[in-house]
């Protein structure tokens, strides 16, 4: 069903533009043109985020922080096997995906840990990455408040995920 969604939506848009006598080639080209400046403005921020994520991982800080925090996470109901996933997800979608796959193959794809990890992965966003991209073209550099609020909200949903997977 969902595979029809985007083509049907596009068809409606194309058809409506035709009725409204929009010049489709001119309009589409004009829109596509602005993709390059977008990508150029986003690139340096992405480099910074990815460099820092990579250093965080390779230096072993990521493991150390995760070992340090896991007792606190456990009090809130987050199993120690999932601490690293919770910590990596705000930085890197690919990193989190690698951990998720590892959890699947280590503990079984239908185990509590795997289901819990799936919900954590699926319900949270890569907050730092979104911040870098969304504010790439912005003058304001006051990102602390929006980032902290998003992280706190995502953390609550991780705690909730571990709880709800116990009963569902």
């Amino acid at each position, binding site marked *: 069903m969902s595979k029809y969604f985007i083509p049907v939506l596009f068809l409606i848009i194309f058809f*409506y533009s035709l009725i409204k006598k929009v010049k489709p080639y001119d309009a589409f080209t004009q829109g*596509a043109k602005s993709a390059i400046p977008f*990508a150029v403005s986003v690139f340096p921020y992405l480099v910074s985020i990815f460099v820092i994520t990579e250093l965080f991982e390779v230096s072993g800080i990521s493991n150390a922080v995760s070992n340090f925090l896991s007792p606190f996470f456990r009090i809130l109901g987050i199993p120690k096997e999932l601490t690293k996933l919770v910590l990596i997800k705000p930085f890197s979608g690919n990193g989190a995906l690698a951990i998720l796959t590892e959890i699947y193959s280590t503990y079984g794809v*239908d185990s509590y840990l795997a289901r819990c990890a799936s919900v954590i992965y699926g*319900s949270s966003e890569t907050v730092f990455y979104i911040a870098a991209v969304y504010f790439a073209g912005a003058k304001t550099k006051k990102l602390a408040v*929006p980032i902290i*609020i998003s992280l706190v*909200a*995502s953390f609550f949903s991780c705690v909730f995920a571990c709880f709800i997977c116990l009963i569902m």
Partner: protein
Amino acid sequence: MNAIFGLVLITSTAILIFVNPDAALAAMLSGGEKALSLTLKMVVIYAVWLGVFELLSRSGLSNKIAKGLKPMNKLLFGQLPDKANDYMSLNISANILGMSGATTPMGIKSIQELEKHPNTEYAITMFFVLNATSIQLIPSSVMALRTSMNSSSPADIILPTVLATLLSTVIGVILVKLFVKKRG
């Protein structure tokens, strides 16, 4: 951002000097490579979506979507400039429909547009938090992965995921309402 960046940069480089000095530059370069390949992927996605969006806006369809979402936007963000309301409406619809490629360009434009006006810090924060805790209706990539690893019921995570995302969005909205002042 500067504080976190500086802290990780210094501590991780310092550790690597003792543990594995070769890895320091290699890690940074590999980060840069990942950023480049992602940027290249994004240029293509942006180009297609921005092309479609241009059709949307020239045909006047995006105006209609924006008008439809205006009451909800007013409730969440307060009074919005018209153009910002247009972009934000497209971003929010794309988010709800799970079209992740389409959300980003409209998100960047929304924030740029909001910035042109005074007293929009509240709206910018709320808008960012909504995107960073966004509601995903069907976690299709997770389900695909579980199916490929022979899960007996790959779909049983849908409801918990929707509930968890919904909760994070609600908490995010409440926190913004509590901690960010609405007017300058």
